[in-house]
Structures are given as structure tokens and as C-alpha cells.
């Protein structure tokens, strides 16, 4: 039997497979390129980029919880100019599509970053981070209200010549309402879910472990929530969906695809195993061979 076709198309971008490391979990790719060729990946999603450099939150910024982890990094990044100058040119040579996650405190900041990234010619898409739970300004402010979100998407679309993917937060009352707002405002795709807000308390100090007190929960603990939200969103929007939340194995990725996702992102699993992404790609391929599938289109959304 011929090899199954893992390729997918998301917002006009052709990916050789649906697997991409999630923003914030892969730096700018350099670190993991020591473990495998980044060209094996569907795409690389780089760390959230803001207009000005951000140092991020005080430490401890990360801690482990049952079947998950909490993080409160706080969008630490060197700023868009530096990212375009120092990081993206190297990544652009790795023969893999690049999606740049962008964040801001105001609509104008998002627009400026999107414009700079778009004009650099180094990225294939931007992912609007309207869902970071760990910053005081911006982030979730834009991701919790459909009117504010729609306005942001419209403004960014005006200045950005590459596809705009909107990364949604699970920390909202109705994720479908926000997904619809993003679609109607012109978003080219939706990625979900960002982390769920959580906390851990240190029994010795009797205080929260994280310096930021609260942080984003990720890992297998959130997979059922993520899957449900992808499923609900896939039922009502027509733009492509990229699913994420606790994907550790090929089978997990397949579940998201069955729930309607065109692509998947892998976050925490990279920390547990630096080879997580290539292993998940291989796992999807094995599943397809075992099931006699020729293309992922054969199963995409089959659970809906």
C-alpha cells in the first residue's frame, strides 16, 4: 500500500503534515533543531512577539501538576524588531512554514507587530494571541468579548498581508460566540485552546507556587476540554481550525482531527520529550496505515 498522505492546507498554507509545535513551547526553533530537522514539522509557531521587548514575570514561572503543568512566563520576548532581525531569518532557512504568534496591549500594538511581521516576508501567517492568561494588559482582554475581538481582527486584517489565525482562550463563557466573531471579522483560521487558568499552593510556604500566583494549565489534563471546544467550534465555523491541548500521541492528534481540526499544535509534550512532535507525526501515520486511510480528509470532522 502507498504511504498515506499527511499533508493539509490551512488558510492557504500547505503543510506536509498537520503537526506544529505550539507557541511558547518551542522558542524560535533553534533549541529543538539540535534534536531533529525542523523540516519534518508541518509548521513552526514561534513565541509570542510584542512591539517592545518584554522581560516577563518573576520566577517561579513553571510548576508541575497532576497530568499537566502551570506556566506564567508573561510573554517574555525580545520585541518584534529583534525577532525579525535575529530569529526569523534563521528559521526561514529551515524549510518549514513559520507562524508568528503576536500579542499587544492595544489594537495599535497588535497592528504594528502584524504589519512588521507581514512585511518581513519571513512568515507564512500570524497567530493573534488574544488568550494569554498571564499578562495584566492585553491578552485575554481582547479574547473575552466578541465585539472587541472582532474589531481587533478587522484592524489587523487591514494591515496584514498574510493569513491571520486567531488563538482563542478557553477561559470564556462561550467560545463559539468568539469563534464566530473572529470568522465574521475576517479571520483566516482559528487555533484553540490556549491554557486554562489554574493554581497550585505550596504546602510548606502555604502560598501559591508561581510568583504570578495564577498560571496557565496545559498538558493531558486539559485534553477533554480542548477536544470539546474544538468540536463545538467546528460545528459552527467554516474557517480551518487548529486544535491543541494535551496532545501527547498520534492518537490524541487523530481525535482532534476527528473533532474537525485541520491541524494540531503540540505544547507541553515537547518538554516531556524533545522528540514529541516527530513521534506524534509518526503516530498519525501509523494510525492511517492501520485504518487504511489515504488522506486525513477521510476522517476530518467525522465525529461531528
Amino acid at each position: 500500500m502507498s504511504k498515506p498522505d499527511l499533508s493539509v492546507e490551512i488558510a492557504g498554507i500547505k503543510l506536509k503534515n498537520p503537526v506544529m509545535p505550539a507557541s511558547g513551547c518551542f522558542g524560535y526553533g533553534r533549541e529543538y533543531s539540535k534534536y531533529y530537522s525542523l523540516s519534518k514539522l508541518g509548521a513552526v509557531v514561534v513565541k509570542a512577539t510584542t512591539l517592545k521587548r518584554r522581560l516577563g514575570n518573576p520566577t517561579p514561572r513553571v510548576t508541575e501538576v497532576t497530568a499537566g503543568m502551570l506556566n506564567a512566563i508573561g510573554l517574555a520576548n525580545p520585541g518584534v524588531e529583534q525577532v525579525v532581525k535575529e530569529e526569523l531569518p534563521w528559521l526561514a532557512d529551515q524549510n518549514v512554514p513559520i507562524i508568528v504568534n503576536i500579542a499587544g496591549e492595544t489594537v495599535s500594538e497588535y497592528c504594528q507587530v502584524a504589519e512588521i511581521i507581514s512585511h518581513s516576508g519571513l512568515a507564512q501567517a500570524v497567530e493573534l494571541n488574544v488568550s494569554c492568561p498571564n499578562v495584566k494588559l492585553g491578552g485575554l482582554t481582547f479574547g473575552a468579548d466578541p465585539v472587541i475581538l472582532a474589531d481587533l481582527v478587522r484592524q489587523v486584517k487591514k494591515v496584514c498581508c498574510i493569513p491571520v489565525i486567531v488563538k482563542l482562550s478557553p477561559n470564556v463563557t462561550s467560545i463559539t460566540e468568539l469563534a464566530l466573531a473572529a470568522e465574521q471579522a475576517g479571520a483566516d483560521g482559528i487555533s484553540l485552546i490556549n491554557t486554562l487558568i489554574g493554581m497550585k499552593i505550596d504546602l510548606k510556604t502555604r502560598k501559591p507556587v508561581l510568583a504570578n500566583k495564577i498560571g496557565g494549565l496545559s498538558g493531558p489534563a486539559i485534553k477533554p476540554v480542548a477536544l470539546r471546544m474544538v468540536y463545538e467550534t467546528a460545528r459552527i465555523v467554516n474557517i480551518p481550525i487548529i486544535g491543541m491541548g494535551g496532545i501527547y500521541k498520534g492518537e490524541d492528534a487523530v481525535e482532534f482531527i476527528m473533532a474537525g481540526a485541520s491541524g494540531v499544535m503540540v505544547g507541553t509534550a515537547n518538554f516531556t520529550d524533545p522528540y514529541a512532535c516527530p513521534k506524534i507525526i509518526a503516530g498519525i501515520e501509523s494510525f492511517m496505515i492501520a485504518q487504511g486511510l489515504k488522506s486525513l480528509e477521510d476522517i476530518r470532522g467525522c465525529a461531528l
Partner: protein
Amino acid sequence: MILEIEYINNLTSDIWEMKLNGDFPFNNVQAGQFINIRIKDSYDHLLRRPISIAEANTDMQSLTIVFRVVGQGTKWLSQRQKGDKLDVMGPLGVGFPLPDYNRKVLIVGGGVGVPPLYQLAVDVSKYTKNVHILLGFRNARECFWQEKFADKGELVIATEDGSRGVRGFVTDALKAYKSYWDYVYACGPRPMLKALKQYFQGQDVKGYVSLEERMACGVGACYGCVCSSEDRGENFRICKEGPVFPWGEVDI
């Protein structure tokens, strides 16, 4: 990579020594670097445990680590047995730069910060015979590897309760020396490192400290384990730019 446990042994009530062998670039280990160890092949512990390399023996093709049981992950590690396999990443990070020949060196360790200084002492002893080693522990029962260190330099032990060696902290013991040093290398609790940096302030000495922080990826991708520069104007990743830093560059 997968390493096999050659032996595991408790050094004190909660500190364990583990020797590993297998396919590992033993020859490329720099004193002060660490390995990141997977805890169980399950979803119980998603984050690896970063543990410094105490000894990398190129002749024996083995690696020794020493760790304290502080939670479920290190408890699991302490319950492994000879012949068990561990999934390990490393060597990771940047270790201690070695001194110029024949210089005067002081190595200072505190508690479970002591182990990586053993490999350092081994390496430093190839460059100079002028090595003072000062190790601080809570009490005599918490002391370990005294004989190993005594073989590598002039050793002084300090204990908080005076049950062995000098009574007090390492900085108290420091006052008794009638010596100066070209290099000071340290690993231990932050307050100890801070006190050392202050003690040597204004002196013409090259100081290096090994820092610790909760880590996630261990390779510089997640920005979880940062420390501040001296002027607090930027951050360094402890797993990538560190864990060893010139003490003048970091805010301890």
C-alpha cells in the same frame, strides 16, 4: 538517551548518589552542566528533573549524580534499582570555566549544591595545586563526599551546629583563611551565593556561581527558568546561558 543505573546508594537520610552508564557523550561534559531526567513513562510527571552532573568518568564511561528527595519525582528516582533504565537529556547548559594554570582557587559548596563541585575540583586539579575547598552542611549527619573532596584540595567543612568542622556558615569559615584567591567557584543556596558575592566585593577575583530555578524544557525554549542580570535590565535562561554565571553578571 537511555542510561542504565549501575548503582544507587543513600549518602544521608534524604540525599542519594546514583551512577549511570550507557551511550552518553561523557567526554564532552563540562563541570557544572546538568542532565534532565524523565520521571516514569506516564502522565504523572510531565516535567523532567534537572540534576547536576557530579562526576563524569570518561575511563569508566559513567556519570554520577547526587540528588535530594524533595518531592514525588525525586522520591521515585530514589526508589530505582541497579539495572533500571532512565531517559536522560544532556549534558545541558553551560558549566564552570576552568582557571589559568597555577592560580589560587577556592571552591565553595552548600548542602545539595556540593555535588557538581566535585567534577569541578577534579578538572581544576589538572590546572593548579592551589585549591581550597570549603563545604557547608547543616550538621555532621548531612555531610557527604568528604573523603572524595579531601583528595582534590585543602578541605574545610563548616556545619551550622558545629557538629563537624567549623561552626557556622561557609562565610563564617571564610574569615579564618589567611589567603587570597584568583578564582572562586560556588554552588549552593541563594543566600550563601549572595553572601559570597558580597564578601568578595571589590576584590580582584573571578567568581562563578551555579544557579537553580524550576525548569520546564531544560533547553532554553520555554523561558521558565530565568534569572536577572546584575542591573535587572535583562534576563538569562538558567538552563541555557547558565546554570553557571560570572557572579558580576547576575542579580543573585
